């Protein structure tokens, strides 16, 4: 599919690579996001990746659409990198407690699994990728959920989902960065905070991250939660560069 340039006013435009959600299309989005970052094109303020397009924000005083579009066409024509280095991130998750995973039993029933353990095993076996962050700071849309766990969003969203709840819907999983309303199925909780303004990098996940969950028991959950709260938790050990 050809690339489309869509106007977002006179300070941004979107480079759209297709009209579907696929790892190939998102890979091109992320590759252009990285390529523009490296090229340091004058006047480009920031780029915003989403599932199938990249929004390029520019300073209308320093450049123009007429200058930028050919520059970006040139980057694409030269060939976008295909071997993007992704961070490998592990997120500890406690699935045990009824308080953390109120929808586990319903998910097992509606996806015709033997029991809750089978749902947990499939969530742990899923190879996830962070496609896009948005809606609220640090909220990641993480695709790659095992296909047999596919469920639409809940017909009645919850008014209050606790911070750090791990949830699934469609082919995605997510972790709520704040207490907020939410329509996804709640299957666990991580002791990590996806958004912590005390940290130098307040947002933990980034688009393009490869991600998997690691099961922890309630005791480990409480210990890590205390360290996160106190600001002493070693986040670096959760991240490997591929």
């Amino acid at each position: 599919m050809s690339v489309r340039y869509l106007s977002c006013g006179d300070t941004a435009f979107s480079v759209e690579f297709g009209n579907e959600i696929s790892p190939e299309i998102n890979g091109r989005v992320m590759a252009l996001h990285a390529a523009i970052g490296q090229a340091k094109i004058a006047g480009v303020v920031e780029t915003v990746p989403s599932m199938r397009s990249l929004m390029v924000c520019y300073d209308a005083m320093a450049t123009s659409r007429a200058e930028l579009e050919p520059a970006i066409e040139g980057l694409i024509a030269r060939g976008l990198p295909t071997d993007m280095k992704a961070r490998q991130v592990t997120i500890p998750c406690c699935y045990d407690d009824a308080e953390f995973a109120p929808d586990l039993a319903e998910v097992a029933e509606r996806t015709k699994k033997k029991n809750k353990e089978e749902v947990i095993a499939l969530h742990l076996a899923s190879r996830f990728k962070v496609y896009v962050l948005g809606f609220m700071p640090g909220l990641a849309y993480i695709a790659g959920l095992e296909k047999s766990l596919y469920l639409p969003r809940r017909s009645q969203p919850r008014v209050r989902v606790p911070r750090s709840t791990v949830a699934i819907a469609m082919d995605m999983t997510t972790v709520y960065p704040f207490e907020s309303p939410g329509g996804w199925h709640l299957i666990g909780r991580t002791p990590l905070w996806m958004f912590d303004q005390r940290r130098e990098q307040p947002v933990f996940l980034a688009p393009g991250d490869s991600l998997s969950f690691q099961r922890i028991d309630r005791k480990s959950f409480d210990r890590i939660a205390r360290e996160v709260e106190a600001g002493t938790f070693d986040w670096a050990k959760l991240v490997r560069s591929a």
Partner: protein
Amino acid sequence: MTAHLKVVRAGLFDTLQDLGRIGFMALGMPTAGAMDRIALRLANALCGNPAGAAALEIGVMGPDLLVEAESVRVALVGPLSPMLIETPDASPKPLESDRTHLLKRGQVLRVGMVEGSSTAYLTVAGGFALPPFMGSLSTYARAGVGGFEGRKLAAGNVLPLSREQAPPGDERKLTQPFDYGSGPVRVVWGPQDDHFSDKGRRTFIESDYRVSKEADRMGIRFEGPTIEHSKGADIISDGIGPGAIQVPGAGLPIVLLADRQTVGGYSKIATVASVDLPRLGRLLPGQVVRFSPVTVEAAEKLRRDQEARIQRAIADFKAARPLGGIDLARLYEENLIDGVVY
């Protein structure tokens, strides 16, 4: 910290804002920032601050601020009728807006109501001594970050100042209020104008739209004729630029402003040209606008022309009369200098 402004009475929606938290949209962080960047810049220029210094954005009604510093120079920009209370039992004296004032310890600045706009700005020479969050002092209240404790000001709050006393210098004022224009709001079609029927696009540019009560820093929901989709209201979520006009299934346009989310899944028929974004940031519920399409190139040119007008307004600042002092400039201008003692 010995120099600060104390909020002795809170306004309605007073938050610190600068030109926005730029560079973190990819992490889902909204830019926030001033709803009216022109007034912010003029206020900063009056005070001799950098263009992007943080100011107090006054929403609807401003606070009463007690000066707890040797002195402080403030600039107020916007349709305000501020008052000065020199001592606790003195009656308030009216002050002009669109200029600087030198305030002394113990005086109270009553910012008062914003008339005919939703926002006005107050800057202090030298700026506020608060730590930036992700490179910016803009308050983003939904996540509780930036500005003063990530929220609007409340009575009793104390805003630390960078300077113990005002820098030496004269008071300055705008020659005239900045002209934001009054014609239709200029928009650029897209990014998803192809999700609408010809009829829907015509409705959008040929109808009056009224600002509803649902208008805040995140965006403005308009009331008016419904806009017909041809390919449905939902899209695969993509980036939301400043001034994006999304049209959900119900067919009424929502203009997304400073605190907008970074990505969204509704089709966006058009985007407000950056030249007119400050106007959107000033709209009040009940006000009516028309939208008029321009090309990207035309919008870029309009913005550059506006930038030149901002520069001119700054170059044209005039000396203003100090509190209780003599307005020499005015005396010369009005040619009253011979004979009349003012």
